[in-house]
């Protein structure tokens, strides 16, 4: 089975966000593999172990993303691809990322492509479905279980709390939801092996794309912090009295009940 995983390097969920000169301050921040992409990597490794084949983890990013690609290799992926478009395009959008990934994948005959269902930074959730559409293959989003029998695929997916069981066939792209699996930690031998696994780097030229082909369609004009929530009132006194006071405040002051 020819498996591909679409991955993104993101801020750690524990990081606070700071803005300077109109953009998010990255200095000193910890970076991780986007948590939903970790589910995708884990599932790809499991499927490979059960059905044979090869797992390639891909990302569109800068050289710094090599670290997260190496982590994926240490988890058990076989190969990694870093597409670096920093110089020509800089900050792209979901269209850019999907366009570039599609171009790389179009002749690769992938059987299954796995992606996270959303990133925890940009949060657009567009790249997976866009890539599937551009490759002309089916996309099943927010999956929590996948079984493959030959070319037939049975999937359980989460739809805002409802559970849907669907049947489709390979080739296919899925986006992964929490609950799909428990991603493994890289083992020490895994980390050693990862250093020798192939990590291919390519750019727009290698994909025979012009700048204009992948230029972003959307433009960020401002980044700002939400108004700081300030601590409100801690109610005092006997518990029963606090509860009545709370109910009264919610009605007369906050107007929410």
């Amino acid at each position, binding site marked *: 089975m020819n498996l591909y995983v679409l991955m993104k390097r993101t801020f750690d969920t*524990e990081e606070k966000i700071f803005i300077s000169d109109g953009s998010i301050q990255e200095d000193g921040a910890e970076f991780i593999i986007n948590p939903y992409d970790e589910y995708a990597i884990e599932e790809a490794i499991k499927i490979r172990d059960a059905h044979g084949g090869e797992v390639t983890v891909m990302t569109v990013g800068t050289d710094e993303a090599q670290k997260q690609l190496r982590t994926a290799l240490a988890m058990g992926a076989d190969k990694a691809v870093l597409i670096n478009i920093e110089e020509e395009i800089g900050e792209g959008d979901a269209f850019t990322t999907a366009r570039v990934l599609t171009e790389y994948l179009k002749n690769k005959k992938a059987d299954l492509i796995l992606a996270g269902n959303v990133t925890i930074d940009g949060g657009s959730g567009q790249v997976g479905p866009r890539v599937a559409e551009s490759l002309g293959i089916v*996309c099943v989003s927010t999956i929590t279980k996948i079984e493959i029998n030959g070319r037939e695929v049975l999937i359980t997916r989460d739809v*805002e709390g409802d559970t849907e069981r669907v049947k489709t066939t390979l080739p296919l792209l899925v986006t992964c939801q929490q609950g799909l699996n428990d991603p493994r930690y890289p083992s020490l031998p895994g980390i050693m092996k990862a250093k020798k696994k192939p990590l291919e780097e390519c750019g727009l030229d290698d994909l025979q794309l012009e700048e204009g082909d992948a230029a972003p369609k959307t433009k960020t004009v*401002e980044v700002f912090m939400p108004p700081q929530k300030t601590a409100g009132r801690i109610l005092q006194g006997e518990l029963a009295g*606090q509860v009545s006071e709370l109910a009264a405040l919610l009605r007369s002051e906050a107007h929410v009940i």
Partner: protein
Amino acid sequence: MPKKIMAVGEIREGQLRRVSFETIAAAKAAAEGGEVVGVLIGKEAGALAEEMIQYGADRVRTAEDEKLGYYTSDGFASAMMAAVEQEQPDGIFFGHTALGKDLAPKIAAQLDAGLVSDVTALEVRGGEVVFTRPIYAGKAFQKVTVPEGLLLAAIRPNNIEPCTRDRTRSGDVSPLSFPVKDIRVVIEEVIRKSAGSVDLSEAKVIVAGGRGVKSAEGFRPLQELADVMGGAVGASRGACDAGYCDYSLQIGQTGKVVTPDLYIACGISGAIQHLAGMSNSKVIVAVNKDPDAEIFKVADYGIVGDLFQVVPMLTEELKKIKAVSP
């Protein structure tokens, strides 16, 4: 410049979801006096189209093929593409729901267009639509424009106020005619966990539990409080990881980002990853035994105490209030 914007409605259990009206309101703002064309796909589309008009759509195109009874991306995309071809809009607005998250990027890819997802506000500045959307799960926000081409956006539920319903408004409702393309995904079964209950993303009131709830059973008083208020139950990552509840209830940077009118956090310490998912709620109440819990720093009202005492008392108190003035 006046624009023609399509607003995609959404049917759930035979009714229009509220986000449909919020999407219409957003489309109306972006259209700058142009036309808002509703698009409604699904079994009861024809019957529900009128309501889209009463909430501000100028006319509605419907698609009711029996293959469209349940959402599939292929089925709904073929209806959408027919609507786009026949209407030639300047923009398309979706709800940022499970359906919209699946459908909008697919349509954007087919049209080679930009798409602004998860929009919480919009304004028109000098003829250009400027969208506001959260990044890092609401730890920050960005303003985004689409300088050229089609204007595609997906509107987060609960953030844009719908237009007031005007039952006297009327407009044209016309079915789309098109062949439904091959549907490549067969739906075998749908298990509705949330039957009759309120969806987290659209809930006006959320009662959320953390590790302090201690067990799956411990969520029962929270559910009772949510029921009294017509709200939904959510959870922190801690509670989900501990197996007290399903991951579909998780609120936070991983999980759902919610902005209800009232968020009641019970036994939640307030880890930064949870705060990201809920701190933009309009009013926050925290109940926690630990007076130093981080959650109190974002709460409008706090009670330091045992949730198993406080929550049932609050439920009774609210029942009394509702009985007097519902």
